[in-house]
Every structure is written in C-alpha cells, then in structure tokens.
C-alpha cells in the first residue's frame, strides 16, 4: 500500500463533558475516493473540523504527507493542500463569484501576482464547474445548486491535494446530485484525493472506494461500499436493534 496522504491517529475531541470523538484513527491514501458516513451526531463534521484545523484536537495526532500538522493553524493547512467545503455554503457575500475564487487563488495557491493571472485562472475553474456565466454576480443571486458549485469551485481554487466535501449534496435533487458527483469524479481523475461526507447513500456508495463509519464518536466499521452495506454493526448504528 502507498504511504498515507492523511493519517489520523487516536483523535479525541471533547466539548465540555461530551466526547464528540473518542480515539478515532483512519488513513487516506493518495488519489483515493474516501467516504465518511455515520448517523447524525456521530462526529463526522467534528472530525473534519479537527482535520482542517477549525477546532483544536484534545488528543491524538494528525499527519499530512508524513508531516505532523496537529498544531498547524487552519490557513496553513489549506496552503499545505487540505481544503474543505462547508456543509452550509459560506460565500464571501460582498464579492462577485470570480472574486470569491480570487481569495484562495491569492492566499492558498500562492498566486501572489495581482490582476490578470488570478482573474483568468478563476474563470478557468468556473468554466470547468459550469459557473462561468455567473462570474460577475454576487452570491446572493445564486440558486442553491449554484451556491454548492461555488463552494466547490472556491475549494478547487485553493489547489487542494486533499478535498474534504462536507455534505455538498444535501437538499439537492437527483439530477443535481449527479451533477455534483460528476464534478467530484473529474477532480479525482486529476489526482485530487477526496473525502466525501454524505448522508445520501446512493451518492457515497457510488463514489467511494473505501468507507469509514462513525457512530457516537467512535469508528465502528471500515470497508468497501459493498461490505459496509452488508455490515450488521453499521445497520444497527443506523436503524437500531
């Protein structure tokens, strides 16, 4: 097996007396399509917050490309190549769609040169994602699916090695889900490793090569989508006895 891109080792996170993550370990290999599932409140988003640096971990280590990043601030992790999208889109509302992309291009991807390069690159990303006609609109004028696409486009602009997609498809129609899935497949073909957090089983099962299941802050299963579907422990976590 290739050396892991991301190694999470015994990660623990507590909120007061509540243990949101209890010694969770997992590793993601380069180029993989990795699914992370679990019932509501199982700690998926907390795990992502710890990996992206939004929350400090209370215990355990996180390594990226072999380097310990447990104490590295979030913006620096983004520059290293760990980029996340948000479950609820968080666009920069005072900027146009293209300017939204300029921020990560300038800050994360290291394109410090002003003007034409950044703008051209933003347009290129928008056209691969099918949002170029909206480049000069403000986020307030976007539909729900366009908002999700903006979220992904902005993440792409940060030039990720590892893209963490946090419920990018919640609330979308079937056709829209296929649309987003196609984008994620294309990104993966370009060599971007993707962690998908999703409640929509059809999407995760189709997308993921390997899935880890969390329940109540613990890792309860790991395997291929087929194995996960047939796993009685997973079934119990989702449906009860």
């Amino acid at each position, binding site marked *: 097996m290739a050396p892991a891109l991301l190694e999470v080792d015994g990660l623990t996170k507590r909120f007061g007396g509540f243990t949101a993550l209890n010694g969770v370990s997992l590793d993601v290999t380069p180029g993989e399509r990795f699914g992370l599932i679990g019932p509501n409140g199982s700690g998926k988003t907390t795990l992502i917050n710890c990996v992206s640096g939004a929350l400090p971990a209370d215990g355990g280590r996180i390594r990226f490309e072999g380097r310990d990043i447990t104490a590295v601030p979030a*913006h620096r992790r*983004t520059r290293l190549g760990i980029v*996340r999208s948000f479950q609820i889109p*968080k666009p920069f*509302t005072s*900027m146009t769609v293209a300017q939204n992309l300029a*921020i990560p291009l300038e800050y994360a991807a290291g394109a410090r040169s002003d003007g034409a390069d950044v703008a051209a690159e933003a347009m290129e990303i928008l056209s691969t994602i099918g949002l170029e006609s909206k480049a000069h609109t403000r986020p307030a004028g976007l539909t729900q699916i366009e908002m999700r696409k903006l979220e992904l486009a902005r993440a792409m*602009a940060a030039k990720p090695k590892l893209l963490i997609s946090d419920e990018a498809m919640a609330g979308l129609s079937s056709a829209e889900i296929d649309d987003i899935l196609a984008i994620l497949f294309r990104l993966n073909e370009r060599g971007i490793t993707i962690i998908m957090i999703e409640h929509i089983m059809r999407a995760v099962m189709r997308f993921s090569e390997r899935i880890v299941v969390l329940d109540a802050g613990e890792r309860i299963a790991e395997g291929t989508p087929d194995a996960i579907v047939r796993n009685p422990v997973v079934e119990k976590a989702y449906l009860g006895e």
Partner: protein
Amino acid sequence: MARSTRTLLVGLAVVGAGILLAALRVNPYVYFAGYVILQYVVIATAWNILGGYAGYVNFGTPAFFALGAYTAVFLIQSTRAPLPVLILAGGLVSGLLGLGIGYLTLRLRGVFFSIATLALSIVLQTMIINWEYVGGSRGLSVIRPSGPPFGSYVTFLFAVMVLLSVVAVTVARFIERSWVGRGLAALRDNEEAAECMGVPTLRLKLFATTVSGVLLGVAGAPFPYYVTFVEPTSAFNLDYAVNALAMPMIGGTTSWVGPVIGAVLLGTAQQLATVTISSEMNLFIVGVVLVAFVVLAPEGIVGLVRRVRGR
C-alpha cells in the same frame, strides 16, 4: 508604478494646498474649524480600516484618541518633546493598545467585541482620572510652544492635520487595494471560510487593529496643543465614538473615499450647526443623518453613487 506616482503627486498636491491655505492667513476660524474636520477625516479613516474593511465595529475610538492625546500630555509635562515626537509617540502607544485589542478578537466577535471596546474606553478614562501627573479629573493646561510657523499655532496645527489626513487616507487606500484589503474583506464576509481558504485571519486582524490604533493615536496627539486645556471628559468624549462610526457609515465603508466624504460632510455640518444653532445640535444631526442612511442607503454615499451609475 505610474499609478503610485500619481497617488503620491495627488497627496503632495493636497498637502501643498493645505500649506498654501495656511500661509494665506484668512479668517482664523477657518483653521479652527478646519482642524476639527480634518481630525475627523483621520479618525473616520482609521476607524474604517477595522470597522469597514475587517467588519469589527469599534466603539472605543475615544480610548485610542485620548491615549494619543494623553501620551502627548505626558511627554509635554516630562520632556517638552517637539510635536513630531508627540505624534509618533501617540501613534505608537495607541498602536500597542490596538494590538492588544486585536488579541481580543480571538474570543470576541460581533457585538461582544464592540461592547468590550466600549468598556475599554471607560476603564482607560477612569485610569486617567486617577492619574494626577497628567491632570487627573481637574485637567491640565498646556502651554503652546512659542513662535509657530504661519504666525498662529492653530494655523500651524491645521497644516499638520492636512498632512496627517493625507497620510491616513494613503495608508487606507493602500491597504484596500492590496492583498491585505482583499483578505480583510474575506474575513469580514465570513471569518471561518476565509481561514479555510488560506487567509491568515488572526494576523490580518492584528494588523488592522494596530494600524487603526496608530492612526487614532496620531489624530489625538496634537489635541492638547489645539485645546490647550486637556481634561478626561473632553478627551474621552463619546462624540468621537459616534462620529467615528457615523462618518464611514454615511460615506460608505468599503472604500477609502467613504470615510473622507462622511467626515467632510458631517464634520462641516456639525461646525456650521455649532456656530449657527447650538453646540448641542451636533449629535442630533449625526443621529438623524445616521438613521436615515442606515435605513435608506446602507452602503453609504459611495454605494448610492455606484447604484446610480448602474453597477
């Protein structure tokens, strides 16, 4: 390069015009009122770097302004330091306070940050009231240096304030158009998303609070020589907090022009009201105009102009 040369030329032209106006020795009231308006140009511009660009509303303007003024008082009392030293020292001390406030943003956001800055102003005022060396609650008379340029010290201070305004506006404009300004705009819109997109939010916030603090301190440092009698109630006047916020809001907070327009319009209106109606009408005017703008033109005059132009 050509653009920055032009900016420099415009700045120098404004300073030149200010010096010329000072040399003309017109009605002394012009300099007297002009100083206050220009002082507000600096204050509004400084406030806007934090409040407008970064979205952290600072109610503690009086604290920074008065700290600049009292740093000057201290230096006048202890060493009779020359005006440039007072201005630099006032900026430095208020800048340090700004840096400290910057660390507050780690824990306090939105309205809680604003409340903390308001409290800061009160705490600082209480400390000054109990510090006899700089006059305590009774205040202190300051003797102006003799033989000022342009024949009168107020005229000289007017020319100095022209220079400080140009410096403040240039700094604000530079920040706004640089990658720092774009990063601040991102964190104003959504701090969490900005951090996740590679923006070093803490460092940018510290930068904004410090620069804002420096400029507010700089605005306050010549104050003792302007009024010649410094006491806490006037130095920590709530007017500064209200005006510092109202002027950029009326002019428009997303651009460096906004605070300048707001300060000139509102500052002039206040000066006129003070002489023609009554000095109490000042804040009344600010209040009415501010409410009108917040309701009718939340993006200020700059926003109105942009809308009319169809952008």
